[in-house]
């Protein structure tokens, strides 16, 4: 049995796995563990590296591994290595097509959790305007976010594409990412105090949030399924949720007891007149009707 301690990033696992595989070490012989030190900053993944660790590993496996590496489950390295072994030495080349297989399923579930975390980061990051670059005139924004997993690098490309025209930083406890108009770069994690608490626009955003809510259709559970409470503390709109819920009953009662309004006759208006005169074509003959 050998113990392999790696820095918890995909590249480190790939290096070790490549070596173990070439020595033909079966998965049952390896104990994997994370290097407990905060990971030093790695050079960004070199996209030009050959995509396969060894010949015959499907590219989809490497994509999965890259994503699973961001998870925090201690078992992830050993499951990845076992799947790699089964794909290459276990004569199970089609393993990834078999979703019900426990290992495949486990990888899929980790990938799904990572995908969801990335998606929520894309959705719930809130930028605050902190200034303007005096030379370039570009607006500068900062956001604070607390992802569940180590996904900053996986999530960063989206922000680069979307917010190219402004300078921004997203700070997280684990790693930070910055864009200055020409390049993305990463720095170590920081604490929340580095980010201002609010933005001048937050109040307007809350006004929108309040007005777009329909009190007749209160469905708090559905909201929380998609926007779990753990995200609320960094969402400016979340501070009025409980107030909106509390008011909704009264607002609905008021609507249901309002007296109905009669129709108002059409005002004198040339356009409405022309509508009335418009020679309307007959509806198509295959139009559904109320008759069965």
């Amino acid at each position: 049995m050998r113990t392999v301690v790696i820095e918890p990033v995909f590249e480190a696992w790939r290096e070790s796995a490549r070596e173990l595989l070439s020595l033909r070490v079966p998965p049952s012989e390896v104990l994997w563990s994370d290097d407990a030190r905060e990971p030093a900053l790695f050079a960004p993944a070199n996209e030009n590296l050959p995509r396969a660790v060894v010949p015959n590993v499907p590219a989809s496996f490497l994509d999965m591994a890259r994503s699973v590496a961001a998870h925090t489950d201690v078992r992830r390295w050993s499951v990845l290595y076992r799947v790699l072994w089964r794909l290459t030495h276990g004569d199970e080349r089609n393993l990834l097509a078999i979703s019900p297989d426990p290992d495949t399923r486990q990888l899929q579930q980790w990938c799904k959790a990572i995908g969801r975390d990335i998606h929520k980061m894309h959705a719930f990051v809130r930028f605050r305007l902190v200034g303007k670059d005096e030379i370039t005139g570009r607006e500068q924004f900062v956001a604070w976010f607390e992802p569940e997993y180590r996904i900053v690098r996986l999530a960063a490309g989206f922000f680069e594409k979307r917010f190219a025209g402004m300078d921004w930083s997203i700070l997280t406890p684990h790693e930070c990412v910055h864009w200055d108009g020409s390049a993305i770069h990463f720095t170590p994690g920081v604490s929340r105090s580095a980010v201002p608490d609010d933005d001048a626009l937050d109040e307007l955003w809350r006004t929108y949030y309040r007005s777009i809510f329909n009190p007749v259709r209160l469905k708090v559970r559905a909201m929380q399924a998609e926007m779990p409470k753990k995200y609320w503390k960094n969402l400016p709109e979340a501070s009025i949720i409980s107030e909106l819920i509390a008011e909704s009953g009264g607002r609905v009662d008021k609507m249901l007891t309002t007296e109905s309004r009669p129709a108002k006759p059409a005002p004198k208006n040339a356009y409405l007149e022309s509508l009335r005169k418009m020679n309307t074509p007959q509806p198509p003959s295959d139009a559904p009707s109320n008759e069965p």
Partner: protein
Amino acid sequence: MELHQKLEILADAAKYDASCASSGAARKDSRGSKGVGSTGGSGICHSYAPDGRCISLLKVLLTNACLYDCHYCINRRSSNVQRARFTPDEVVQLTLDFYKRNYIEGLFLSSGIIRSADYTMELVVDVARKLREEHHFRGYIHLKTIPEASPSLIELAGRYADRISINIELPTQEGLTKLAPEKNLARTQLAMDHIRNKIDERHADKRKPDAPKPPPFATGQSTQMLVGADDSTDAVILRRADLLYGDYRLRRVYYSGFSPIPEPSLLLPIKPPPLVREHRLYQADWLLRFYGFTVGEITTEASPNLDLHLDPKLAWALRNRAVFPADVNKASRESLLRVPGLGVRNVNRILSARRYTRLRLADLLRLRVPMKKVMPFIIAADHNPARLGLDDEALRARFLPPPRQAELDFEMPMAAPSDIDSVRTGEM
């Protein structure tokens, strides 16, 4: 009037429109530009309101003043609601400000009709033009168009927008005549046809390698139908939806359960339809689009309305027990898609896995298939449901939600959490 107050009025006025999707746009992003914005892939819900609805776009009206008198609408001319009007620049600035803070995916702009359809449409298009041309905005833009506006304006709207839509509102002309006297079904469908042709043209042009690059045009159109404002049955609603999907290739039909509004009209029912009806329609809609069902299978002459207690796929399966059980190791994709509880994703996984292995119940369990629902309808390597009583008359009762307490009996059935999920994901 303060911007704040305008936003309050004009967002409130827009909230009854259910569509908020921001997916399906052509891929574009802000790299190399001075602006912001990206689209492509599936849209993002940046927040959720306590009504469970996704907030992905800044959804506002340019003005809520309106010449029309659509009785289900809070903005109709007979309503005494307070009126407001944004200037195009105000909407442009709000969109950019919200976008840069990552509150939204883009703008969904609609408007009450003032002066004339063309006048209104020009204002709406102007906002989109400014965003795209003056501010290099590459985010999502959805414009609501007015069927009576001139075709050239609709084309211009389509050039700036990722999605355009016209609300059909009600499935029959009869309903419109009564509740939206200015609207006309044939005119609406004519405008949809025009949009469809433009979208098609763009795709056709793109395929010719030597043709000049076609001007950009929206990648899709969608519509909304109100449920429960008139007495149309679900069969009528679904047949209209099916026709719209077929004839005009709509991306989506949104069903919006008529909801009580402040300023109610005398012509409308006071009680809203049960929310679950809207759920069932969305489920039926998925069955039409992705599961190979026809309207005639989902609703029948005897029962033109969907069963509120059971999802429409299960209800169909119980009416058609003779076609079951389906063998998960052998049955065709089409048959598996008809098994209650097997969604598109799991059917794909089953088809892929069974090329290499014979599936047992434990395998399905690992795929998180709802076993209780599926078991009576399938055969697996270690399971044959013969004795589970597919012919049992009581089978339906097994799937009904537990009876409610007596004092709640008058309440309409609610959608189960799994139903709510299926409406979102389309997995049934």
